[in-house]
């Protein structure tokens, strides 16, 4: 059994001296090195989700194939490794699609609903060495690794070694680690991640995508310049998610693409008047088309993602009875996805993104002296906030559902504005206001989603009635589902008044006013 892991990057030896000779020289008389078999050539693929969930958690996942059985190796922040045999894998893959084992178990928690796919590939020559004490007992293992990166670019990495202690010999291994650290030019520790080195060699860096808005506005910039920066960032996010959506890697590509579209539409609607005339109308229509194109597939994704919980929540019907519904959803989703992919490959879509980028990059930054970014943000956010309050206060227990739906839209507009202009406000005050709003949004979202789902379940049921071989038990189970949605919707309706009262409370109002006063105009 091995424990205590330590990684060292070795410098190139003087005049091409092989790395194992450098090691022998470093260990002195107290320890000796012995070979543990001939060097082997292995292929490595480093895997991560599109939004770098593993890298953000300071973990790396490798799939190593070579003369030994193929393995998945997950290295944690402390250097400890989980390994699992795994051959004949194909990428991208969701954690749940991998063979059962400790790596999959840990990965499920790290990657969630996102698929992992190769972010770099390399070929390595690995030489295993034993470190012996004066009794010729193995106290540690050294795995010496010469790696040539093949993707995303070709590069040779510095030799690196991984030292692991044999159980009960941690003290010896630590001494060996110290001796190795004294090798001139050697670098130890987490900075030595081979994935980062491989990416750097290719001119890339990890974590170059996040689903969060990544734009930093300064209060004094002109309003058009601020809006332009926001819209360009949203366009980058939109485009970054197109290939993954078309390849159907995982459901989050479409989700993030839709978020970028919705934010773009809201920005156009609520602040597009600061852009040159006609732009808002021209692109507003096109982005609405794009939004509508993505809706059916996303709705079905939401169903399919929530399916296990829905099935598990059945009381009267059995989960298995719902299987025809699942099959129906999958078939519908496959059909809708084909439409979506066609739309994203269409000339209309490529024209939209091309022209939108051309327009945005060509925009003038506006004349100084007119409204600045902070002024624009505060004005539009305050206006959206007033609308939320006004519409919310008009809702009584007798109001029809449409009033709540409208209020939900106003809340979303306010939320998008807050997100778009977040970098202009103090983070803590901003988070508090978003938190107040989010509670109300959750309640309204629950109310509307449950209603929509009830209607959709009825719609699905009538579609399925026309299909052959759908048993009555499936429709009954769907009836129970619809009933449960109805109950949940009612609960949300009952909670609304309290949630809105919270949102409109003097304390929440105060937090909002503090935030709006927080920019330096």
């Amino acid at each position, binding site marked *: *059994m*091995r424990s205590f892991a330590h990684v060292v990057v070795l410098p190139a030896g003087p005049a091409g001296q092989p790395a194992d000779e450098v090691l022998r020289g470093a260990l002195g008389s107290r320890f000796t090195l012995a070979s543990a078999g001939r060097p082997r050539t292995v292929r490595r693929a480093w895997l991560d989700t599109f939004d770098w969930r593993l890298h953000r958690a300071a973990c790396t996942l490798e799939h190593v194939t070579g003369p030994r059985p193929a393995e998945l190796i997950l290295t944690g922040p402390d250097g400890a490794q989980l390994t699992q045999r795994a051959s004949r894998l194909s990428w991208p893959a969701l954690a749940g699609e991998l063979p059962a084992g400790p790596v999959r178990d840990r990965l499920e928690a790290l990657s969630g609903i996102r698929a992992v796919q190769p972010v770099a590939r390399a070929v390595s020559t690995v030489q295993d060495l*034993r470190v012996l004490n004066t*009794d*010729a*007992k*193995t106290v540690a293992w050294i795995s010496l690794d010469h790696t040539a990166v093949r993707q995303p670019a070709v590069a040779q990495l510095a030799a690196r070694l991984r030292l692991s202690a*044999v*159980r*009960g*010999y941690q003290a010896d291994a630590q001494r060996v680690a110290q001796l190795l650290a004294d090798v001139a030019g050697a670098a130890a520790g987490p900075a030595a991640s081979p994935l980062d080195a491989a990416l750097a060699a290719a001119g890339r860096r990890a974590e170059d995508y996040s689903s969060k808005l990544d734009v930093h506005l300064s209060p004094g910039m002109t309003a058009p310049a601020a809006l332009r920066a926001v819209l360009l960032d949203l366009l980058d996010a939109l485009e970054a998610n197109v290939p993954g959506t078309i390849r159907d890697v995982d459901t989050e590509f479409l989700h993030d693409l839709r978020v970028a579209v919705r934010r773009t539409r809201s920005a156009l609607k609520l602040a597009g008047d600061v852009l040159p005339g006609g732009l808002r109308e021209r692109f507003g229509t096109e982005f609405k088309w794009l939004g509508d194109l993505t809706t059916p597939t996303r709705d079905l994704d939401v169903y399919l993602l929530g399916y296990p919980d829905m099935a598990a929540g059945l009381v009267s019907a059995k989960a298995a009875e719902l299987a025809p519904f699942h099959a129906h959803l999958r078939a519908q989703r496959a059909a809708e996805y084909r439409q979506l992919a066609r739309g994203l490959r269409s000339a209309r879509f490529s024209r939209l993104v091309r022209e939108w980028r051309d327009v945005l990059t060509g925009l003038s930054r506006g004349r100084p002296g007119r409204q600045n970014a902070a002024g624009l943000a505060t004005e539009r956010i305050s206006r959206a906030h007033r609308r939320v309050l006004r519409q919310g206060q008009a809702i009584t227990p007798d109001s029809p559902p449409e009033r709540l739906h409208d209020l939900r839209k106003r809340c979303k507009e306010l939320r998008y504005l807050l997100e778009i202009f977040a970098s202009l406000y103090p983070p803590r005050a901003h988070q508090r206001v978003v938190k107040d709003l989010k509670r109300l949004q959750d309640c309204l979202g629950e109310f509307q989603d449950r209603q929509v789902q009830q209607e959709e379940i009825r719609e699905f049921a009538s579609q399925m009635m026309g299909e052959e071989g759908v048993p009555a038990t499936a429709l009954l189970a769907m009836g129970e589902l619809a009933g449960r949605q109805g109950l949940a919707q009612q609960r949300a309706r009952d909670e609304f008044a309290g949630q809105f009262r919270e949102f409109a409370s003097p304390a929440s109002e105060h937090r909002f006013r503090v935030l709006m006063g927080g920019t330096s105009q």
Partner: protein
Amino acid sequence: MKILATYNIKGGVGKTATAVNLSYLAAQDGLRVLLWDLDPQAAASFLFRIRPRVKGGGKALIRGSREIDASIKGTDFEHLDLLPADFTYRNLDLVLGATKKPTRRLARLLAPLGRDYDVIFLDCPPGISLLSESVLYAADGLLVPLIPTTLSLRTLDQLTEFIGSLDGHRPDVLAFFSMIDRRKRLHLDIASQLPEERADVAATTIPSLSLIERMSVERAPVAAFAPRSRAAQSYRDLWAEVRARVL
């Protein structure tokens, strides 16, 4: 987790060679194996090049004041760990005698190791003592190397009688002939005859070979340094028989 003990009242019959080789072969099969060298002479520890020292000595282990986990050492072989001997093990009877239910003590100490190991081998010192009673209580299988002489057969009878007299748990006894000298007629006769007559005697026999003695020079299991030798094959056959019978 299964516990196998190599045990005989007599010394010098091949207990340690058996424990070392079978634990190595079990680990080679992919099982997670721990070998506890209970003999203060520390031959098994020596063969794995592990210094016979346990912090706090046998007393700390038996009393439970020191975690067994912390004293375990990795051998040079994948899946095979060793709990080393210590010179203080010569007093284990006294330490055991001072505990409650001494005969159950080892079983209690080893139970938590089931998380980490599939098989635990106990390499016992010769003699009948409180320690051996505790070993008999803990073990699922008792591997008894015998030199094929009339006297050693009497010892086996004494042992089975003794085990029969124990209350509660009794290990499955599997004796086998070891150190067989092919030049001795008596050895060959007894070694071929007895397995047919007695169910508790294994069909596999371990010949007396200089390669087995060479283990103390190589300081490794014979199956590791001479895997194609007759000696290694004999231990592989014995392990196959033990595995089929006890695991």
